């Protein structure tokens, strides 16, 4: 099963689609979670997920705002989509009895 950060990474990459690369994924994670995401955590997780076959990466285009340096593009594989979906299902199932989920259901009804 995926770890929390691995799930965040796959979800952020899937959401960015064709524009998923290191800096964009990092910004997306920091923006949504409000937590700092280090370059070290980002790139070691990308490599680990690639080894597991959940992501594929390749060197993309270089842009002037990057000082002419290439991007490491990221794409989620079908296996990665399945792993993220499984993680999400587990989180939903395990959260059913939790007070905050019950309260939310109660307030909605």
């Amino acid at each position: 099963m995926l770890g929390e950060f691995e799930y965040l990474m796959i979800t952020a990459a899937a959401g960015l689609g064709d524009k998923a690369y290191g800096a964009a994924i990092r910004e997306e994670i920091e923006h949504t979670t409000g937590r700092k995401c280090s370059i070290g955590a980002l790139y070691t997780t990308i490599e680990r997920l690639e080894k597991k076959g959940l992501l594929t990466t390749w060197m993309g285009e270089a842009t002037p705002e990057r000082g002419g340096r290439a991007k490491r593009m990221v794409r989620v594989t079908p296996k990665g989509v399945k792993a993220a979906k499984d993680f999400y299902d587990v989180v939903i199932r395990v959260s059913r009895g939790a007070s905050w989920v019950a309260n939310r259901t109660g307030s909605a009804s």
Partner: protein
Amino acid sequence: MGSEPDWERIMTAIGWSFVEVAARLLERGEREAVLGDLLEAGESGLQGVLDVFGLAVRRQLGLWKDWRPWLASFGMALPGSLLLMGFSLSVSQTYQRLIHPTIFKATGLTVGPGFTLFLCNVFLLIGWSWTGGFVMGSISRRTVRVSAIISFLPCVFCLARFRVESLSRFCLLLFLLPAVWGVCHGLQIAQIKLRSALILAAAITLLTIPTWTSKGSWIPNWALSWPAWYLVAMAWRSEARKERERWRTN
């Protein structure tokens, strides 16, 4: 007041030159992507250096989950450098005893008894150092810097405590040149052919025969000879794999 932006620009340039130096710890492809990401995110020089160091440390630690770096560093580099320093000293002392400078000056090359044994030891020192270096370089290329540091630590310690007046302290480092040569070859070619490996291992083992009679010599002998036989095992495995693939394709 107008010089403030210039000052900031200079500080940013200095900071970025540190980031670029730190990024040399990363592999080329990754370096490119990481530096681009940092630039795009507008990170400061200090934050950039910390980020790059953080990634480099994580990368190094990740490599140490494997057994190879441990074998290269603590099975080869550390004990190998200690034993080879001892052997370098022994060879230097034998040289001093056999070829006395005054005799050498007066009559040309005058050699005492045991010169053949001395030559054997010189070849053995070169063989052990080269094979040790080769295995250190080939077994775990990405941790070779750490292995090199680990092998230098006992050298620094022994150089500082060296107290033989008739010899230069650099006699301890006779093994260094062939060892560095071996490391370079190990990094470049990773493996040698089975025949060459067998000849090398057999030659090294033969050269150790004169020392078999002395008590306690088998420990340093095997500690320094195993890299040669390890090369044989690796070459044999590679040849066997090639043979199997040839059978499969036919």
